[in-house]
């Protein structure tokens, strides 16, 4: 009895979860495998369209012979690179149509024209013409004739399904001169974006955790950058930072802080001297990181605030009795209480920042030294139209992420053991 109950429970569970599992499998897991497959292939954007035989039907009357009509089919292979095999053709005609000249490749039976065109190489074109005559001399309705569409069929290879593999993509990605630069840019972007957003998160959470008038309002405001659409925010920032008529530059010039406008999103380096040391700062990258911090610190803020509110008040009361200063309380009580949240946040934000595409794409498009790995996926796949290369870059991203997660958990595991 119990057994059958457990069985029905199992069955129900599978029925309930199956739709969701299938969908996620089809759209998320399957593409990951497909990505591995494509990354070992030489595929370009133009290759992924399946070649089709196409025909454009043109109906022409013949002068002085009203009972006859000429039909021209402009035949072509839609693909510029692949052949189509065994092309077959079919078209239907009204019941009073007799054919005048029959092409040897074709057959006319029951007012149905059937042709076998054989193989069409890439870029194949042909003007195929047939002449018909009505057997009862009635008027020919050209529009109706045109509205009947011919049917074409053929076999072709799907370049994605054949088994020609190559290591070329990975060689190109990994031994490219820019690969190290790409990695470094991605790392700077991810690391400083993550650390910055966590620091701002701690500061704001600590701030909102105090009592002041308008605290709930402040909490909503702090989340605005996180919930608003990235497109709107990125363009607003672009406008704000614009060198020619942007508000920030105009303000700085107005207050005589700078003399000439700075192109914050379009300049790769800026020379800065601090304490007599001159060094070059990656300007556009820094700006993009600032945007990143601005947009994502609210997540850190929320997590840390939730944790702060759960810290027992007694801890602080005890510290007050011991005469601890506010800074001591922060460093000795608050910070140790939120390290667990911070380490989780660090991981989540690191992974998400590592894959962040939209923000950089919208702000700079990857120009002036802000090309990160995800931007490179897009550029290889869609700007240079090399799908195989794009796939290879995304595989590199996955591998790097898995490595990061492995080391991170190992390090975290050790910490937990020590404690």
């Amino acid at each position: 009895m119990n057994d059958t109950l457990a069985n029905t429970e199992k069955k129900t569970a599978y029925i309930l979860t199956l739709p969701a599992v299938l969908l996620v499998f089809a759209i998320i897991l399957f593409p990951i495998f497909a990505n591995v497959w494509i990354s070992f292939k030489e595929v370009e954007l133009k290759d992924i369209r399946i070649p089709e035989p196409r025909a454009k039907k043109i109906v022409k009357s013949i002068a002085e012979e009203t009972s006859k009509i000429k039909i021209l089919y402009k035949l072509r292979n839609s693909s510029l690179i692949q052949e189509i095999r065994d092309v077959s053709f079919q078209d239907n005609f009204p019941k009073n149509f007799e054919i005048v000249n029959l092409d040897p490749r074709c057959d006319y039976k029951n007012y149905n024209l059937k042709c076998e065109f054989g193989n069409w190489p890439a870029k194949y074109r042909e003007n195929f013409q047939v002449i018909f005559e009505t057997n009862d001399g009635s008027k020919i309705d050209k529009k109706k004739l045109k509205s009947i569409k011919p049917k074409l069929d053929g076999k072709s290879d799907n370049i994605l399904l054949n088994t020609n593999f190559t290591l070329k993509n990975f060689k190109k990605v990994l031994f490219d001169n820019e690969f190290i630069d790409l990695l470094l840019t991605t790392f700077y972007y991810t690391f400083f974006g993550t650390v910055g957003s966590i620091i701002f998160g701690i500061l704001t959470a600590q701030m909102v955790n105090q009592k002041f008038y308008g605290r709930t309002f402040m909490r909503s405001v702090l989340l605005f950058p996180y919930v608003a659409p990235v497109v709107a925010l990125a363009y607003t920032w672009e406008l704000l930072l614009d060198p020619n008529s942007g508000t920030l530059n105009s303000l700085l010039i107005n207050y005589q802080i700078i003399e000439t406008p700075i192109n914050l999103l379009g300049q790769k380096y800026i020379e800065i001297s601090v304490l007599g040391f001159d060094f070059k700062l990656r300007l556009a990258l820094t700006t993009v990181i600032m945007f990143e911090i601005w947009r994502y610190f609210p997540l850190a803020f929320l997590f840390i605030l939730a944790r702060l509110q759960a810290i027992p008040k007694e801890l602080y009361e005890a510290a007050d009795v011991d005469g601890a200063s506010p800074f001591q309380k922060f460093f000795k009580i608050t910070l140790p209480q939120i390290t667990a949240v911070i380490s989780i946040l660090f991981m989540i934000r690191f992974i998400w920042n590592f894959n962040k595409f939209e923000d950089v794409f919208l702000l700079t498009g990857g120009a002036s030294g802000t090309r990160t790995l995800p931007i490179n996926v897009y550029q290889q796949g869609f700007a240079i139209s090399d799908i195989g290369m794009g796939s290879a870059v995304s595989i590199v991203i996955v591998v790097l992420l898995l490595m990061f997660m492995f080391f991170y958990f190992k390090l975290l595991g050790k910490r937990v053991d020590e404690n």
Partner: protein
Amino acid sequence: MKIKNTILFSLIATFFLIFLVSIWKILATLQGLTIKTFNIEIIFIIGFLISLFHLIFNDKIKPIYKSIIFSSLFVIFDGYLIQKLPLWYNVGTFLIIYFFVSKINKYNFTNLKEEHSTQVILFDFLTLFGILFFSFVILFPFYMMLVTSFKTQIALLVNPLDFSINFGQGLKDLFNSYFVIFKSYNFGKYIITSTIVSVGTVIITLLFAIPAAYAVARLNFFGKTFLSTSILIIYMFPAIVLVIPLYTIFSQLGLRNSIEGLLIVYTATTLPVAIYMLQGYFKSIPKELEEAAILDRLSWFGIITKIIIPLSIPAISSVALYVFMIAWNEFLFSLMFLDNPNSFTLSRAIQYLSGDAETPRQYLMAGSVIVTLPVLFIFVYFEKYLVSGLTAGSVKG
């Protein structure tokens, strides 16, 4: 000790005052006033003197008189002698100094003598500073977005610092950019597409997620732990990795440039979060209710529709709002899958608009306001639901 603390207090307070006045000056500049300098040195001296005199005269004058006297003195110095500026600016300055003096009224020589007093003061002022700083830094871009959408091309070029809204020009001129983007750039259609896609994603996601979350929360079956851990892992998975294979597959299936294609992808990417959030809530519903239902011979469908759903309306609505926001804000997939303007979503349309260098920016900003407003409205209105959900599930981004 006393002197050191006094000086430190005055310094901290002064820096805060400089910050306050500078922010006020920036805002005034953005309303079209010509202010060329912050006068930091002068404000530093005045601020330091105010803080010092405040400590010295603390008990001798009533706080309200003191605030008024200090504020008036400051306004006379800064607003009248140094720059000749309109009345509203000086009134604002007066209020700021009034606010400042009432803040420092809390402190006197007795609590300066207490242990850690400077740290306490620093903490208090840092909090105040933070509140103002973050409000300014966060709200300013939104304010700019809104104001720019009300401007004309010429006004933007003549004075990029003028952020005042001219209400005198009549509603028609004020909302001109909005009329233009609806008329010439088809924004009405994009709003409809975005709404269909977002609402559609919400409905389909809930249809798939509620049964699955119920199974994960309540039923025992082989592979349950595997399923719940993979939900989390998939949730972390990078979208950029899915782009190329989905693009190729969708091209071959003819799903690009279609709403169906977007619906499928959005549903699949939001499902893990939705299941994760819902199962957490379902677990908190007492089991006894379902046991009674099983005795009444209700099927699983009956249990879900008659017991689980009515009891979890708050959780379901918060998941629905989330999924709506994710789908509404989504950009990456809409960039990849849509290249025919007939099927654009709002985000994609704005990006397309910006691709044309000729597009005046007030149109771009009007579009941005249109795409931002619904989300911010939903967020502010349903904040309670959303914040609790945010910490539990957290929106991907």
